[in-house]
């Protein structure tokens, strides 16, 4: 009876438990492969600069040089895969600049921030400032 139970247990275990279970710990290592195989949405700053020479030149010398293109323009991995089929939209400037530069006591003291309404009376920031290389 005990022997029979053991054989049944081992048979069920062989079918139910994946072959590689426990390779790295008490989990299914195939999950690592599944998770790492997911596709990316953000291509990365360097990818953009490979094609957009003019923007790279202007952007690279300004105060926004360390801001990734996709931070403002959104995820562009599809665009880098097929530039003509996936043309990115221009950013929503009215909200984009405000998120970073609206005056707030919690922001670092040295960071450039303004009371946007008082500063521009509702005008869009890019009416005066070049977003790729803003001058104060």
């Amino acid at each position, binding site marked *: 009876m*005990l*022997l029979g139970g*053991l*054989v049944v247990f*081992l048979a069920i*275990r062989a079918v139910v438990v994946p*072959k*590689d*279970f*426990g*390779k*790295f*710990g*008490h*989990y*299914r*290592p*195939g*999950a*690592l*492969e*599944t*998770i*790492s*195989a*997911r*596709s*990316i*949405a*953000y291509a*990365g*700053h360097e990818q953009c600069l490979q094609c957009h020479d003019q923007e790279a030149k202007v952007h690279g010398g300004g105060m*926004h040089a*360390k*801001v*990734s293109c*996709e*931070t403002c323009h*959104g*995820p562009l991995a599809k665009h880098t895969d097929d530039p003509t089929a996936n043309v990115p939209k221009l950013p929503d400037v009215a*909200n984009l600049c*405000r*998120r*970073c530069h*609206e*005056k*707030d*006591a*919690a*922001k*670092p003291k040295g*960071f450039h*921030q303004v*009371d946007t309404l008082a500063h521009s009376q509702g005008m869009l920031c890019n009416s005066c400032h070049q977003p790729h290389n803003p001058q104060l």
Partner: protein
Amino acid sequence: MDLSRRDIFKIGGKLLLLASAGATLEEILGAAPPSEAYRMADHWWGMIIDIDKCIGCGSCVRACAQENQVPAGFFRTWVERYQVEEGKQPLVDSPNGAMDGFPPSKRTDLKSFFVPKLCNQCASSPCVQVCPVGATFVSPDGVVLVDETYCLGCRYCVQACPYGCRYLHPQKRTVDKCTLCYHRITKGLTTACCENCPTGARQLVDFKNPEDPVHEFLRNNKVEVLKPYMATGAKVYYKDLDGAVR
């Protein structure tokens, strides 16, 4: 066939030995690593966060949501604003996880700062310890992950996480959390939140890489992890973390 108890134990022992030998063979022939160029044993991932650089813009939150298809109203990462008045409980807000940044604070006389939050990628993770089915685990390169095909959605891990970093995905009905963009870091990219942080407040680090700037950062700065008394082995280090932060 007449078997004594001794015979049964002998046969059982042999079967167990065979089973364990099979397991050893499985280890040798087991699943491939994430990619051929990436060696898990060479990495031990974490993150450093410089609170003094965070401007609360929410770029990290938006990038995370886009990169990982995080459902609306749930967050793998979020930003909190602390406003601390002497002798009182701190005021903490995080409107929509800071997805759209923050409205200007009304009080300007308080000590105020932003604190980005995410899974702390604990080495001794409580969430892993309580999972009854081995669905959540620490990968060999130090990232806490969830196997969606194994997760039952029991939410023990959601309760166990001291940092509130897990949620039940409303469509999948399995637990979801920050993967430290495992699909990116195994391809040699940084995380979506670090890629899109405009001030460099968040940086992905590899503790096993002797050239990684994290070593100099830890040597030269006063750093702390969240809730150190929980002894979770958190690998997200905060520079100049205020005592008011929970």
